[in-house]
């Protein structure tokens, strides 16, 4: 098991290395001079040259890459071109809201989607099944921000149950946090629920036809035990896989949702950085999100054996 985890960790190195090279080249080879952005419109060519020198933009490409990469390995992601603050500090300051909303989204999604999928498979070809599948197809079709605005319109503007926008940390009071975090989490959860419910249903349908399910029912095991202990555990692997790969959707959704609800998280930070061409921040964020994605999927792969002891590493 430990050997497997180590092997997988080693395998993530080339993936992240290629991401790093890709991001580096992407930013260096496209038009647009960071020095010109930094210097502003009134800069003289001599000033531009000095800034290029200071940023190392005059060095050959591979020298720039290794300088950047070496610094990154030491935990130095550079300083923002726009605000001149340390990128690590910027990201750290914005990480809290995003992590809180993402965790809440995952909890809501799994708690709702798995039972939805199980019940849809259990009551296959009834109105419940049709309703769950319809929700699932609809969830894929409506843009995240439209869902966000519909929820704002209903719960914040018409019913006035929660504030329209903004964010409060859990330390500011649990009530304040939940009332502001619930709509963004539900918005983000919609597509995730659609994805997980669909996969749970498909996976359960396959398992419910198995002999051991019939045996369990025949010997009088209660139906909820059959569903959740016998069937769901055996259907778990594809569900876990989709939770892992769907994490990319979640990261993309965070970017949009934070804009809709004015949440000061890393999603907004990234969009603002990209639109302002703040290269060090863009590099750091793309590497960070790619790293998180790879790690989440590693955890998912390792957790297979927990749900299905037949899988050993």
């Amino acid at each position: 098991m430990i050997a497997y985890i180590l092997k997988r960790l080693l395998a993530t190195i080339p993936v992240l290395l290629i991401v790093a090279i890709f991001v580096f080249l992407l930013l260096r080879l496209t038009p647009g001079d960071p020095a010109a952005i930094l210097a502003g419109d009134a800069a003289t060519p001599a000033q531009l040259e000095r800034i290029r020198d200071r940023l190392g933009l005059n060095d050959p490409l591979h020298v720039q890459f290794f300088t950047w990469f070496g610094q990154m390995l030491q935990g130095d992601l550079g300083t923002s071109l726009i605000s001149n603050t340390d990128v690590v500090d910027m990201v750290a300051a914005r990480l809290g809201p995003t992590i809180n909303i993402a965790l809440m989204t995952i909890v809501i999604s799994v708690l709702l989607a798995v039972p939805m999928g199980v019940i849809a498979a259990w009551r296959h070809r009834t109105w419940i099944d049709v309703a769950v599948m319809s929700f699932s197809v609809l969830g894929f079709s409506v843009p995240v921000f439209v869902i966000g605005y519909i929820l704002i319109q209903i719960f914040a503007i018409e019913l006035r149950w929660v504030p329209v926008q903004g964010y409060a940390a859990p330390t500011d009071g649990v009530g304040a946090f939940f009332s502001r975090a619930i709509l963004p989490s539900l918005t983000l959860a919609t597509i995730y629920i659609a994805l997980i419910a669909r996969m749970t249903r498909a996976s359960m349908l396959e398992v419910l036809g198995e002999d051991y399910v019939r045996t369990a029912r025949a010997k009088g095991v209660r139906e909820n035990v059959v569903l959740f202990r016998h069937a769901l555990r055996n259907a778990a692997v594809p569900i876990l896989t989709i939770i892992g790969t769907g994490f990319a959707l979640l990261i993309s959704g965070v970017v949009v949702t934070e804009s809709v609800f004015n949440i000061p998280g890393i999603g907004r930070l990234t969009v603002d950085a990209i639109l302002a061409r703040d290269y060090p921040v863009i590099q750091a964020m793309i590497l960070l999100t790619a790293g998180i994605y790879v790690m989440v999927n590693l955890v998912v792969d390792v957790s297979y054996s927990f749900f299905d002891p037949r899988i050993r590493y």
Partner: protein
Amino acid sequence: MTELPGSRHSAFQVLSGMLSLPAGARVGIGPGLAALVLVAIVVASICAPLYVPHDPLAMDAMARLRPPSSEHLLGTDPYGRDIFSRVMTGGRVSLLIGVGAAIVSVTVGLAIGLVAGFFRTVDGIVMRIMDSLMAIPAILLAIALVALNGPSLGSVIIAITVPEVPRVVRLVRSVVLSAREEPYVEAAIALGSSMPKILLQHLMPNTLAPLIVQGTYICASAILIEAILSFLGAGVSTEIPTWGNIMAEGRSYFQIKPGLIFWPGLLLSLCILCINLLGDTARDLLDPRMKKREG
């Protein structure tokens, strides 16, 4: 050179499978309805310039944010432009981006996938690169590409295509990996067929059916991503109305004029819903195994 009928035959089977339904396949009323709605939206969008009552770009400072009336069916936006005309015209570019991104992704993915699946030597490297691309969230990659290449139609299509290509490559590669072990491919190699001929004539037809399904999904997701890109300020130039652009401009006026987000959002969601439903139907018809799995 002897002609090997095997692959021709399978290509024919694929196409006939598309056109006429295999025995026992049942298609409910849903897909027919979806096709009808989709055709209606596509035709309405393409023909928009023929029937919309106002120039979608004509501003009128005296008629800002008007409520719906007989002159302005859905009212006017903050610049006094007719919302109905803008929403109907906006569909053209959104749909064009969807179809364009699907065609480019499938073509590029097919080319890379065929080569990666057939030549073991490049397979490892290509697939590592594809894995890495897939690790970058699609939206972030797309915004970065548009921000760096400028907000033109072409750069938006490329930005949507780049994150989709790895998925197509994986699909094509997996089909090629199993097809290359088939006797007719081995026979073609033994007979000395040229490499392009083996790839295009013997292996490519196997990938057509899954690619058509994948293409519809890419088209739907491209329309969604265009909307998100515009919404975040990294889409097609705001002078061209697209569903995404109209919604993006509606952001600041959401509380006064929710229609700016809801009407384009409704058409866009309806459109994606229909494309996805048709994609599901095509998948079920082409791959009965999946049908059984999904119920």
